[in-house]
Structures are given as C-alpha cells and as structure tokens.
C-alpha cells in the first residue's frame, strides 16, 4: 500500500531543485513526440535552448510573450487567493483591449502624457467591470463564478467581433474586422531598439512586486487572505467578505484588462479578435504553478514563455509540426504540477500484512 504523508518541512534544496527537475523530466518526455516525428531529440534540445537564449532577439521575444502572462497570472493569483475562481481573464483581457482602442485610436487626440494613463486606467476599468458582473451574480444570486466567467469569455469574444465589424472598425481597414491603430503617443514605448519587448513588461513587474508586498503586509491583503482561507470565520470576525470579494474582483479583472492594454498598446498597435492565443487561460496555469504568489507568477510566466518560445522555434528548426510547442508546454505544466506535489508530500510504501501477523 502507498500512503501519502505531508512533509513536515520541505528542504531548501528541494524547493529549488524539484521544479527544475520536473521541467527537465518534461523535456525528457518531449523526446517521445520528437522521435515519433522522426527528429533527433538531442539536437532538438540544443535548438530549443538557442530559441530562447540564443540571441538578444530570442530573449526579448521570450520576455514579450511573458508580459501578458504576468498580468493574467497575477489576475488569477489574486482572485484565487480569495477563492474567487476567475476563469474569465481571457474575456477581461479583451475588454481592456477594447477600451484601449476605443479611447486610444483617435477618439481623443491629446498628448501622450495624458492619453497613455487614460488608456491604461480605462483598460483596467473595463477588465474590472468584466469581473465585477460575475462577482455580483455570485454574491447576490449564488451563481457559480467558474461558469459565469467561462461563459462571459464567449460572450465578450462575440461582442468583440461585433464591435470590430461595427463601431470599433477601422474605417481605413478595407473592411477587415480590426480596430484603428492606437495613436503613436498612446503606445507603451519599446524597451529596446528593433525589439518587440515593451514598457508593459515593466508595468507588469512593478505590479507583481506591489501585489506581493500588499498581500503579505497590508491590512487589505490580510482581509483577502482571511476571506479566501475561511470566509465564514472572516465574516464572523467582522471582515466585509463581499466588499473584499468585490475589491479583489476589481483588481483581478483590472489586471486582466491591463494584459489586453499591454498587448494592444504595447505590441500590436491595433485590436483584432485573435489578439490573445489563450493568455487568459494560461494565466491560470501560471498562477497555480506560482503557488498563487505574485512573485512566483513572474517566474512561472518566464518559464512558460521560455518553454513555448523555445519549443516553437525548435519545431521550425527540426522541421516537426509546430503543434509540438503546445505539447511541450502542457507536458511541462503537468510535470511541474506533480513535482510541486512531491515537494510538499512524500509517498510512503507500507506493507500492510506485516503489522497484522
């Protein structure tokens, strides 16, 4: 019989070593699809490494892809801390992006000093609104937010399509369902010449640090943790549970909205219905890998981005199907999940018969 026992404490080497080991195991497992596709795994790993760290360009691309994941990862981490299961970051991201182009692409031609903050604030507000609605339905009617946020993703995406063929459509866009570009002064500036990595990354990092600090050190964070760990006790102790939930809903939705702002005003410049290849959902994964810690979110986002960019680039170099990238990401995720388990628990083999005789 196998028994699972919580480790009294996790050795330091293990906290650091196990995630790394898990990632390595995931890469080892990636050899299976590689061999199936007739590629040499050893060469592939080399290509993968080169794809992420081989050049300044590669690193900048990895950072570019990590940026929205930090935002959505933070969105999920904060909400999940309060046991508010926000699966709707994807939709909230698009709400933020819509708000950004609504004001940023010519509606207001004002200096960047005003326009950029306006875009950021409105984008965050739009995302926040997208999470406040399901939170209201939860608090008022008891409607499960996993489902409402999930369904809202679809509704928002369809709404987006409607907007891109209607009010938000670029009049110069030859009829394509896309928005007009954000004015130059409304764009988040790039961090490096000729590279795509942009100031959104800095914003994301600052917010991660801030979130980490507030969660651990502020009364607000205290309340949020209490509500998440035991809402009944928090309510009994006089903490406004609904207020905390709405607060975290606003932050979580706002962060997801910022992911949209950052993608549209930092990277693409205008909005299309395929702005996000599932950043909202991946954010959940990032948050959980991070153990719901904001600082961890940064590391997890960098990890996921590295694996994706590396595997994607490797698939091209090795001439195997580019679907390999998602496959490697998902295997890494599952391995790291199990690794996290092993760090917290140990399996004990017990022979049941012995004691009985």
């Amino acid at each position: 019989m196998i028994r699972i026992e919580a480790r009294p404490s996790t050795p330091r080497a293990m906290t650091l070593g196990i995630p790394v080991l898990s990632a390595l195991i995931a890469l080892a497992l990636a050899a299976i699809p590689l061999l199936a596709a007739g590629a040499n795994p050893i060469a592939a790993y080399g290509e993968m490494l080169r794809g992420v760290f081989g050049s300044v360009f590669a690193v900048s691309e990895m950072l570019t892809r990590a940026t929205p994941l930090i935002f959505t990862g933070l969105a999920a981490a904060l909400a999940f801390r309060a046991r508010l299961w926000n699966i709707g970051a994807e939709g909230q991201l698009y709400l933020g992006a819509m708000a950004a182009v609504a004001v940023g692409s010519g509606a207001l031609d004002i200096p960047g000093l005003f326009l950029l903050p306006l875009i950021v604030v409105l984008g965050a507000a739009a995302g926040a609104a997208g999470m406040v609605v399901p939170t209201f339905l939860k608090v008022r009617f008891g409607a499960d937010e996993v489902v409402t946020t999930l369904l809202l993703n679809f509704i928002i995406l369809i709404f987006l399509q409607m907007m891109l063929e209607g009010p938000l459509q670029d009049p110069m866009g030859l009829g394509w369902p896309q928005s007009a570009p954000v004015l130059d002064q409304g764009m988040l500036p790039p961090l490096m010449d000729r590279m795509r990595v942009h100031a959104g990354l800095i914003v994301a990092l600052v917010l991660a640090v801030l979130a980490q600090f507030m969660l651990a050190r502020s009364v607000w964070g205290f309340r949020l943790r209490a509500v998440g760990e035991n809402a009944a006790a928090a309510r009994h102790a006089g903490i406004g549970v609904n207020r905390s939930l709405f607060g975290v809903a606003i932050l979580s939705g706002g962060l997801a909205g910022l992911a949209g702002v950052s993608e549209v005003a930092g990277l693409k410049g205008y909005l299309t219905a395929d702005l996000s290849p599932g950043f909202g959902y991946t954010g959940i994964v990032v948050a959980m890998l991070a153990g719901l810690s904001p600082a961890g979110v940064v590391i997890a986002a960098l990890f996921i981005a590295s694996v994706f960019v590396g595997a994607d680039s490797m698939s091209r170099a090795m001439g195997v199907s580019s679907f390999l990238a998602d496959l490697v990401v998902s295997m890494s995720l599952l391995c790291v999940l199990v690794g996290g388990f092993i760090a917290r628990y140990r399996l004990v083999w017990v022979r049941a018969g012995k004691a009985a005789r």
Partner: protein
Amino acid sequence: AEKVKVAAIYTLPVEQQWISRIHKALNTAAERGDIDYVFSENVANTDYERVMREYAEQGVQLIMGEVFGLERAARKVAKDYPDTAFLMGSSFGPVAPNFSVFDNWIHEPSYLTGMVAGAATESNVIGMVGGYAIPEVNRLMHAFMDGAREVNPDVTFIVNFIDSWYDPPKAKESAFAMMDAGADVMYAERFGVSDAAVERGVKAIGNVIDTAGAYPGTIMASALWHMEATVDKAISNVAAGTFEAADYGQYSFMAYGGGSLVMDESLVAPETVEAVKAKEAEIMDGLFRVNVNDDRPVSDN
C-alpha cells in the same frame, strides 16, 4: 541551379482551403526541385512577427504567408530584412523594396458560378454560408450574387456567417437551416455546406478548391484559385535576383490562370453552360469586368 529557400507562415492549419492553395503551389515547386520549402502552420498573430524574423535570420530567401492581422508589423519586419523577399497575402499595397502582396482575386470565376446557381435554382432561393464577413469573403459572395442575378432577376439570397473558419458541423447546421427556409442551391464557402447538400440532395457551388470528387452529383461548379502562377513568378524573380515590391494580385485573375472555373456539365443545363462559357470568354478578353464589392452581404428579405 541553386534551390531557392522558401518558408511559409500560415495562421491556420494547411487544410484550410485558402492556405491549402498556397501550400499546394509551394509543394509543387518543391517537388519540381525549384525550392527548399519549410512552413509553420497555425501561428498565432501574436507570434507571427517572431516567426518571420526567425526565418529571415535563418537566411530564407522568400517568405510567404498572410499578414491580414498584422499589416504594419509585417512591413516593419520586411524593412529590417531588406535582403529577404516577402510575398504576403494582404489587403494593402506593396512596400519597396522587398514587400509584395497577393490575395485571392477569384471574383471572376465566382461571378460565373453565380450564373450557374442562378439558372439552376427553382425555388429562387440560394443559401450562402460564410466564415467571417471579411473583404476576401464578401467580395466573392457579391460577385457570385451578381452573377446569379444576371441570369435570374428573381433570385433571393439567405446569408449566414458562422463566425469561425473551422466548424464544419456548424456550417452544416447552418446549411440545413437554409434548406429548411427553401434554398435549393448552396454556395459552399465553408467545409460542411456541401455535406448538407449531399444529404438533402440539393446542388452546391464550390469555392477556392475543387471538391466535386468528394460530393458526386452535388457540385455544379466551382470557382478555383491557383497560386501556381503567383508562386512561380515570385520564385523565378527571387532566383534571378529581380524580386521587387509588387502587387501579385493580378496573378490570381483568370487571365493569368490564377482563377478558373470548373463545371460539371452533366449537372448544368446546356444553355447555361453556353452562357457561362460566353461570359468566361468575355472576361478573358477583358470585355467584362466583374464588380468588386467588399461590404458584408446580407440576406434578401
């Protein structure tokens, strides 16, 4: 001669009709031994720019693909790699020195298939199922509708967009709904429509690719797109070092063999065949210009 290194970047899998035509033309060129061909499919627009740069860095000579979702970014990349030739599906114009564009300008054969459909319908109701209402789609639908109206002024259209490039079951349901509303000829812009037509025994018109073999007795005519002319032209330009920024759209016109009509003459009335062939000749001779209309088509009520 040295093989030209060509890479293609597609935002959808290579089975998608539109992309399959480019893929096919490049594969043909590769089989001929003219090029070394690699491709990445299903690349999200977010990642597209990185993939372009990766190929450019690898020294690929010609990069093909579609930049409808990232027109500006793509032109920026092209500027950063002036020695690489870019030939991209795009709604906008070329940019010197190295960024050329193309599009599926098969409105001409679409017009002709419209004539077939308009003549064939008995209920005077034609059903049209589209993916998204984007210019590339709208343009062909309007040409088709114009053609149908030319031969049959009483014809009405039911138009539906399923808001997905890929959902054959949904396209099929949409087609069934139109047949329930009286449509007896279907314009099959998406996969799934012809399947519904086969099940109900009504006729269909194909688009971009020739699926007549898969739906025997159903597809009366198809407007085909051929990328060979475009691709071969670009490859030879690159090989000769004469690649320039240009609009390759014309190579999709019928006159260049980029667009063509196929008809199953056993399913089409002889007088219609005759009328269509006459019109085809007019187009080839430049005597008739098919109107281009990019607006979203709507149902007649």
